[in-house]
């Protein structure tokens, strides 16, 4: 993967570059602010950008706004946002931008997850390939805030677990690995979830995720 990093803390930036380079990916640019990020994306057209939400000059949501404009102007570039805090408001904005652009290719993770190298690189690959990678905490908040409590209430505990992992953007294989069940069993759960929630079944992973997210968010 060809990657651009935007993170204002020099130590974290260096750490990210090291992890990605070590995993065999090419870091095209590592910048410290949103303007630098947009310039680097314009110049390199990377597969994915890793973006800190809070960057200078205002230290609020500069990264988010840059991420949204990258999704709009460069649909081929996936954007993985990460921050110290999960703010539901940011999730809504980012997912709104993602579905408005007609594709996924977004992710939102807590900074802690970056420390789990393999999971982080896997999430970034998913985003670069047009998939979705949401932090479990984002999904918990989405589930809690969803108005479709009746629909969600009909799911079994196992189905809710599968739904949460699906909303994080994981494939059947990854879900099976996490829950220590067979992929066949996961497929069966997914089919049940889609029929219980009244969603049209879909085989492509990322379209399936979008359907679930739209359901939770609407």
């Amino acid at each position: 993967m060809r990657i651009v990093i935007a993170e204002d803390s020099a130590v974290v930036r260096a750490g990210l570059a090291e992890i990605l380079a070590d995993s065999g990916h090419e870091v095209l640019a590592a910048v410290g602010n949103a303007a630098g990020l947009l310039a680097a994306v314009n110049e390199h057209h990377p597969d994915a950008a890793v973006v800190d939400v809070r960057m200078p000059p205002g230290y609020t949501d500069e990264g988010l706004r840059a991420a949204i404009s990258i999704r709009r102007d460069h649909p081929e570039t996936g954007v993985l946002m990460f921050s110290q805090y999960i703010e539901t408001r940011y999730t809504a904005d980012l997912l709104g931008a993602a579905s408005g652009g007609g594709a996924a290719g977004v992710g939102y993770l807590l900074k802690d997850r970056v420390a789990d190298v393999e999971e982080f690189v896997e999430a970034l690959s998913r985003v670069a390939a047009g998939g979705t990678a949401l932090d479990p905490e984002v999904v918990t908040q989405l589930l809690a805030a969803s108005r479709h409590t009746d629909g969600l209430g009909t799911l079994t505990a196992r189905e809710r677990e599968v739904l949460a992992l699906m909303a994080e953007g994981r494939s059947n294989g990854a879900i099976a690995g996490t829950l220590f069940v067979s992929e066949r069993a996961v497929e069966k759960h997914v089919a049940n979830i889609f029929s219980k929630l009244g969603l049209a079944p879909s085989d492509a992973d990322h379209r399936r995720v979008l359907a679930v997210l739209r359901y939770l968010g609407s």
Partner: protein
Amino acid sequence: MPMTEQPSAPQLTGGISHSASSESVARAQPLAMRILVRPSVYRHPRAWGSVCSVAGLWVFVLGIILCSNRFWWGAALIAVGALELWIAYRLLVAPLPERVRELERSRAHVVDDSAARLRRIERDLHDGAQAQMVAVAMKLGLATKKLSAMAGRTGQTDLDRVLELVVAAHRGAKEAIAELRDLARGIHPPVLDQGLSTALTSLAASSEVPVELMVDMPDRPSAAIETIAYFCAAELLANVAKHSGAQHARLEAVHVPGLLRVRVSDDGTGGARVEARGGLAGLAERVKTVDGRLQVSSPPGGPTVIVAELPSHA
């Protein structure tokens, strides 16, 4: 032998015990003597006022006693006492409204200042300790990955032990990141920098009980007030989730010129009370620091309505 030396020990301590005893001598002196000894202190109007009120009262009472015993020259003492009491009034009571205004100004300054300081601490944590911990955890994550690959290849027990240690350190680093995050968020939630309405939107969305949100804030109150309002709303919504058994809650924030009103209501079982050292009492205290007030209505069986009213500026 040591026993006989003991009585002389206090004398050896010199300066300290000497100044302490002169302190107690001064306290025992009559007021008049103290004024003579420390005239500069008593030049302050408040000290003069106190002296005049005490002396005036005594002279006044003495004058009345004399007059009632037909020593008519006591009337002069009554007049002097009354004059002293009047001076005391001018020095102590008359300046109070001005002092109240001064106190309000300095309190607003202190409240704003502490809000700004908390914001700075959160920013420092974010840029400093939190970033460092993330970098450390990332390095440990990378080390874990490399070591497990090596351990798989060579199968040395020493390497397994090192891997165990690194994995434990990695886990510890991640726990530290989570703890730091909670700490920083408790000090100053960064989302507040984008305004109270954005912060409340995020808060309502992350509540365990579904929250209907109504925000009407044409302009922003001061940062310190926003912080207090945010923590009120957060605590009240947390209470709804923890204690009320409610199915729905409603959060309203309305800002009119001069007043910010935050109202949290739910359809739960009610019975919320302001108890000493309880969460609501803490909130009430916090609201009071800026002259706000907290109204609680929570009859048994519900519904619970809690309103915090805050001035726009501290």
